[in-house]
């Protein structure tokens, strides 16, 4: 009996091995792996997946569509690169993508940049020094959201400069009733909001983190003033205590909950309020960033495509990226994003959606920002310095460890130089 059972089990194992081998021969299709960014507006991932599935069906290939939260992408991607098994295509933030360009991991996208009519503003956010490796998918122009009702209650004008913002915030601030005037995140969570905000203030105070020649020039009197200004927003309790550790979602959540009066964010908040909290949207004004002595610097980035050299299907990856910008699909996608996205190609804004005053405001804003690394050239090391949130960590040192601002700035300069190998 035991012998019969053993023979049957052995035959079953052998049969399954051969059956699996036969199945592998029959499904000898090419495969395309796409790691997409998890977006705040769910419609994006639904439409993106649908478009991807249609592309795969038309080209008779196996498609694998994976949604990855932005904070998790870098770790997963580095692990896959090290394992020699990166995806074919990813969607990520522009500053994040620039790090991979320097690693020589990315496929040239010259054919995409030549075939698709990208705008000048779009080309600016994807420039890297060693060629064309990044494709601009959309621009995410940020703005300042402010609870106009809170300012009007106190008879205050809406602020246009950083000093005005600080002075009026002190009046509006009401922590005893769980309302903080400002909701600026300052967590070293891997996102871009906090570092972009720091650099925007440093630039508007006249400081320059890294100059146009790639030299670290952050240690200046202007930057010191900027760091002191940012730190006092937290030490004077104008932001919630936990804001010093918020990730990029923290300010969205706090504003939506009505617990903060000012945030700076892309149209993601606008889209969210339109759908979920129109009453709060009615109390909100969307303004340009405050300015400092050197003007206003609006760090503007966007979502971008990259294709990996060591992916399995280079040609298909390039063709898929081109197909994303087919007019009907792209126009429809933009309207579904409710103004959160601004287009990177010409010829898609001549419709009623972009004639709406709010949407046209976002569109106009997308044309006048500076890229996140401004004025430095876009190299992998400079992008890495942004990604490591060095300015954020300097502010945390001042606020949490009571480090003298000049010492924090000296350490910040050294951190920049270490990262850039200077």
């Amino acid at each position, binding site marked *: 009996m035991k012998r019969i059972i053993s023979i049957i089990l052995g035959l079953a194992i052998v049969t399954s091995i051969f059956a699996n081998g036969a199945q592998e021969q029959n499904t000898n299709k090419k495969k395309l792996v796409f790691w997409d960014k998890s977006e705040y507006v769910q419609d994006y991932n639904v439409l993106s997946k649908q478009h991807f599935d249609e592309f795969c069906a038309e080209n008779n290939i196996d498609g694998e569509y994976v949604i990855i939260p932005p904070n998790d992408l870098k770790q997963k991607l580095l692990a896959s690169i090290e394992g020699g098994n990166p995806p074919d295509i990813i969607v990520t933030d522009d500053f994040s993508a620039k790090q991979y360009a320097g690693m*020589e*991991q990315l496929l040239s996208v010259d054919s995409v940049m030549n075939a698709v009519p990208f705008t000048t503003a779009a080309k600016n956010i994807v420039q890297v020094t060693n060629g064309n490796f990044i494709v601009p998918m959309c621009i995410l122009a940020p703005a300042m959201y402010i609870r106009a009702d809170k300012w009007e209650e106190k008879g205050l004008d809406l602020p246009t400069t950083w000093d005005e913002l600080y002075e009026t915030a002190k009046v509006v601030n009401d922590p005893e009733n769980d309302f903080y005037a400002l909701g600026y995140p300052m967590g070293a*969570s891997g996102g871009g909001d906090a570092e972009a905000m720091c650099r925007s203030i440093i630039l508007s105070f006249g400081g320059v983190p890294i100059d146009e020649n790639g030299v670290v020039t952050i240690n200046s009197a202007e930057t010191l003033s900027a760091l002191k200004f940012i730190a006092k927003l937290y030490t004077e309790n104008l932001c919630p205590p936990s804001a*010093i*550790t918020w990730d990029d979602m923290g300010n969205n959540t706090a504003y939506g909950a009505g617990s903060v009066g000012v945030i700076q964010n892309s149209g993601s908040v606008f889209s969210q309020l339109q759908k979920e909290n129109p009453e709060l949207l009615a109390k909100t004004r969307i303004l340009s960033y405050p300015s400092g002595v050197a003007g206003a610097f609006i760090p503007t980035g966007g979502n971008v495509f990259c294709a990996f050299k060591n992916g399995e299907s280079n040609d298909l990856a390039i063709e898929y990226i081109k197909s994303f910008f087919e007019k009907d699909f792209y126009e429809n996608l933009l309207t579904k994003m409710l103004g959160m996205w601004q287009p990177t190609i010409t010829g898609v804004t001549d419709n009623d959606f972009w004639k709406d005053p709010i949407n046209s405001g976002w569109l106009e804003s997308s044309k006048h920002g500076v890229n996140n690394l401004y004025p430095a050239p876009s190299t992998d090391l400079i992008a890495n310095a942004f990604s490591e949130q060095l300015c954020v960590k300097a502010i945390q040192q001042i606020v*949490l460890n009571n480090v003298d601002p000049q010492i924090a700035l000296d350490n910040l300069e050294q951190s920049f130089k270490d990262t850039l190998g200077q």
Partner: protein
Amino acid sequence: MQNNLKSIERKLGYTFSFPILFLVFIIIGFPSIYTFILSFTNKRIGYPYHFIGIKNYVDIFKNPVYWRVLSNTIIYTFVCIIIKLMLGFAFALLLNENFKGRGFVRVAMLVPWAIPGMVAAHTWRWMYNDQYGIINAILRNIGLIDNPIPWLSDMKLALIAVIIVNIWRGIPFFLFSILGGLQTIDSQLYDAAKVDGAGIVSRFLNVTVPSIAPVLTITTLLSTIWTFNDFDNIWLITGGGPLNASSVISTFTYETAFISNQMGRALAVAISIIPILIGLMFVANKLLSREDK
């Protein structure tokens, strides 16, 4: 003849052991050796690497953040183990007694252990939130605090916050291991001790503790190793922040490897704690050997 048989048996033993030893070498041995080698290089993912000698080790030992993180790890492990052991023992003694609803309480005590780590971490993170977390809401409502406590963004409180979560999750392991040991103790030992005039404390110290000493040793050792290497609890709640206030060796290694993309240095950090873990194994082995005698 007997020597021949022994020789054949020995050879058979090696032959049958070879496949599993080979597998262990492939899965554990080779990666460990490769990790050790890479810790002497300037390995960064996506770039070629070069041998740089002991520079990584010199850099990490000169870095005050490394010593901060190591001290956090030791404090985290020590405090968590002591409290889990004490509370686990106390609850085990309680649940070893007969009372109404004991079965329900036993099942309820399993919940922290049964909940997936990610769910538990996100739930605690929400509870700790200074603006809309339930902990601050309750403390304010009962008048214990006037202003919300920034559990996860205060340099002194962040580590305490993650210690609390580790203790909450780890008590059931101690509880049920010790409870199992308690239930194997012969009640006649207690009767004999009572006859000899031993009080409650004396019976606990001279009957209970010695009887379950092997269980205590192995439970504590395993929990120490797991707690020393704890990652998901801390990473998901505080990310090791603010400013490494709650960072431990595992989160610091991860951050160095994948956020800063300094794989060589990260591997040096990981290798640097092996002597500590070997020390723990040595102590445990000594204790267990003493029990066997």
